[in-house]
């Protein structure tokens, strides 16, 4: 054991000396927005992201889908610009406006050249769509129709049916389990988008991330410019708690596909969970580590039963899902289920070997530089750190936290948090007895 601890110290020393992490600057803009900035002049470009706690979980129970449409319509018309003006002006300077939307977050991101003309034109658009969206009635009607068409299409796809049933079964009545239906979308009114926007897109809730070729002074001005005219807000911030334990249940949904899509899982962990690192490292060994995980080895390498098999924890504001997923031809779905369940059971019961733990740490720690080797990736971490109020030293601490995980901690955390006998199992395209 002595040699191992020496080796791990050596591992960490290597990390500390070689893996420089970006210098994160943090302040609060006069508007109240929290700002995270990394100054980097290597490339003549700037990335900006602005996020709000306005994801799908912030919908009202009787107005599901409003958060998503609010996000979708932000850049489709403002008080002064039509959707075509917006698209054309961005294209004229080669800027790219993107969006991200999940259970917790609703955000926009912008990539632009940092030369003044281009940067100013691009930021003017971002500023406008964030602070003066108009949600035009005609655009809303069209987007509702497109959304309905997309939903009806998705309802023919096994992967969509599986995710929808999984969310409902794992989260029950919690907003993380809500699924937007066609009738939800059809009844959405413009005033609901305006109300949602005013309540949730306030400066004091905003997290601004900036990465790239501007000075601190410029970054300060940009952050203020993007948030000074946001609405007053006033929405309650928190989300209701997710109930951790659930009853075992299995749902089989008919589908003509040649493969069954299988999802197994339960509520997992929140971003600030004390078990985060033991579960993260443990899950690498179970099903997160690409070609070298136990699930991959049992299901694919040994038996050739699936192309893809994985497990993950989705850490959110409240505990997101723990999920195992795979697709396998219908005829062998029973056998595949048996193998996956046995793999999970023995993992939870017996924990990991020291050899597995070492390999996991080596991958995560040595591979750490790959997580921060581009402006785009760093921007993502700035948004994450800001949104979830993680320490500014998050990136510096990451490898140390991983290195400190013990096999006992992993075993203990999985035993407390993951009960293989209390899992939801969804099988779409299950073999049917009465099928012709």
């Amino acid at each position, binding site marked *: 054991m002595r040699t191992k601890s020496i080796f791990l110290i050596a591992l960490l020393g290597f990390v500390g000396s070689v893996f420089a992490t970006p210098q994160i600057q943090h302040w609060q803009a006069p508007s109240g927005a929290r700002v995270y900035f990394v100054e980097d002049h290597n490339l003549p470009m700037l990335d900006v992201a602005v996020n709000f706690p306005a994801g799908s979980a912030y919908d009202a129970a009787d107005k599901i889908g409003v958060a998503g449409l609010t996000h979708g319509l932000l850049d489709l018309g403002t008080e002064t610009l039509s959707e075509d003006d917006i698209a054309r002006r*961005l294209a004229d300077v080669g800027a790219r406006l993107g969006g991200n939307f999940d259970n917790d977050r609703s955000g926009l991101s912008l990539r632009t050249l940092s030369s003044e003309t281009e940067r100013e034109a691009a930021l003017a658009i971002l500023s406008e769509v964030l602070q003066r969206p108009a949600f035009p009635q005609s655009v809303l009607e*069209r987007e509702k129709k497109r959304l309905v068409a997309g939903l009806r299409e998705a309802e023919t796809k096994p992967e969509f049916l599986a995710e929808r049933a999984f969310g409902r079964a794992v989260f029950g009545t919690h907003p993380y389990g809500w699924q937007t239906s066609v009738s939800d979308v059809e009844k959405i009114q413009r005033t609901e988008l305006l109300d949602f926007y005013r309540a949730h897109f306030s400066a004091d809730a905003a997290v601004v991330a900036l990465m790239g070729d501007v000075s601190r002074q410029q970054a300060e001005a940009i952050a203020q410019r993007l948030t000074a005219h946001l609405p007053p807000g006033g929405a309650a911030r928190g989300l209701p708690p997710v109930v951790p334990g659930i009853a075992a*249940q299995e749902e089989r949904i008919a589908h003509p596909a040649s493969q069954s899509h299988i999802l197994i899982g339960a509520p997992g962990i929140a971003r600030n969970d004390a078990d985060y690192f033991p579960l993260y490292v443990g899950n690498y060994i179970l099903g997160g580590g690409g070609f070298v995980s136990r699930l991959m080895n049992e299901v694919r*390498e040994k038996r050739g039963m699936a*192309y893809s098999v994985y497990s993950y924890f989705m850490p959110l504001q409240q505990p997101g899902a723990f999920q195992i997923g795979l697709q396998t031809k219908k005829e062998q779905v029973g056998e595949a289920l048996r193998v996956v369940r046995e793999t999970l059971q023995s993992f939870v019961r017996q924990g990991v070997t020291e050899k597995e733990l070492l*390999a996991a740490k*080596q991958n995560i720690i040595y591979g750490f530089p790959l997580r921060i080797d581009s402006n*785009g990736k760093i921007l993502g971490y700035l948004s994450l750190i800001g949104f979830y109020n993680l320490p500014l030293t998050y990136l510096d601490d990451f490898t140390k936290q991983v290195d400190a995980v013990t096999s006992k901690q992993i075993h203990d955390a999985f035993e407390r948090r993951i009960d293989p006998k209390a899992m939801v199992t969804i099988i779409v395209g299950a073999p049917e007895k009465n099928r012709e």
Partner: protein
Amino acid sequence: MRLYALCLGLLLAATAQAEVFETTLSNGLKVVVKEDHRAPTVVQQIWYHAGSMDERTGVTGVAHVLEHMMFKGTKTIPAGEFSRRIAAAGGRENAFTSYDYTAYFQQLHKSQLALAMRLEADRMHNLVLSKEEFGKEIKVVMEERRWRTDDEAHALLDERLMATAYQEHPYRNPIIGWMNDLENMTDDDARDWYHTWYVPNNATLVIAGDVKAQEVFALARRYYGKIPAGKLPLRKPYLEPAQRGIKRMVVKAPAELPHLVMAYHAPTLRDVANDWQPYALSVLAGVLDGNDSARLNRVLVREQQIATAIGAGYGNTSRGPTLFSLEATPAPGKSVNELEAALREQLQLIVRDGVSGEELQRVRAQVTAAEVYKLDSVFYQAMQIGQMESIGLSHCDLPVMLQKLQAVTAEQVQQVAREILQDDQLTIAVLDPQQLSDKPKPKPEIQHAH
């Protein structure tokens, strides 16, 4: 003795290619190094100049199956061990097969490059290909085919479109192979493929990241240098006979909405400095679909609301022929015929009235910005180099191509639309959506496990 070469004639051009160095080992392996010192990471990509277009009837999919088998052990590295060692070095790795080439990559901290090169060189020459491992892996590939194609309506439509648009050229066969060919494939088929194509004189090694070119060349000689060159089979040109009239086809698959693809035979870039049509077609695709303000999205999705989604596609760099394609999903209540007519009208407008200077300028702005944005991804830059080398062009052509693209005129766009978008060269594929026979409702009772 010169150790390496730069792209001659471009030394003054302040482009990204200025930091690209290349050499060729005595066994024929070409090594290209792109230095980028922003982060202490490196990517290794090895590109074999053999893809599914080199397969023969009855063994379609073997290029991709061999790609899977490359992880299944060599004389000294047991099955799965390649991935374990790369993972333990903090690496990420995978591989991909296309019509034109097969490539393998690892991304790691720069200190681990030698390990990746040693392992990659080993499997270039020492693959074992056991019957047992093949028997398991071919099942994985069949699952991959079900997942990617058989159960995916749009992928199925694309597969059959290719099989219809091309009658002679091997692009008519799917990269993943026809299921029946996979069911009848043997480890001998994979072995033949490996011994035919996996030789250093049929590959390009691309290393990009925080490295020094001369040190990489030394490592390459050390690990790859001793692998003997092989005798490559004569490659056939496979010229697709000219199409003589429009082709129409229908694919039935589970879906809600129909889908329409219109694909025209179009020229590929061959003479980088003197061709003009491939550049004009790229700009045409940009004018139609290069950004949110482009014509198809603006007119057909937003204004006429005849489509819910729409796109134009054209790739001008490939070993074989290419297609200029449009695809769209009709809005509910709109028919595929109405959609086809609306798409044709948009093409006709360009043939008749041309494109505006503003539209052209917008496409140029996109191209200029994309050249900067690509610098944020070392992996992508390596990809571009590898692709060029694998299809018979050179990475040194990239700056020339950029200049030519930026020099396309409005008249050229109009002319190329008129010359290339001809009905006789067109294949139209329609997805005929099939309702699910059982409406996907959960069974009334929920079964409790155990």
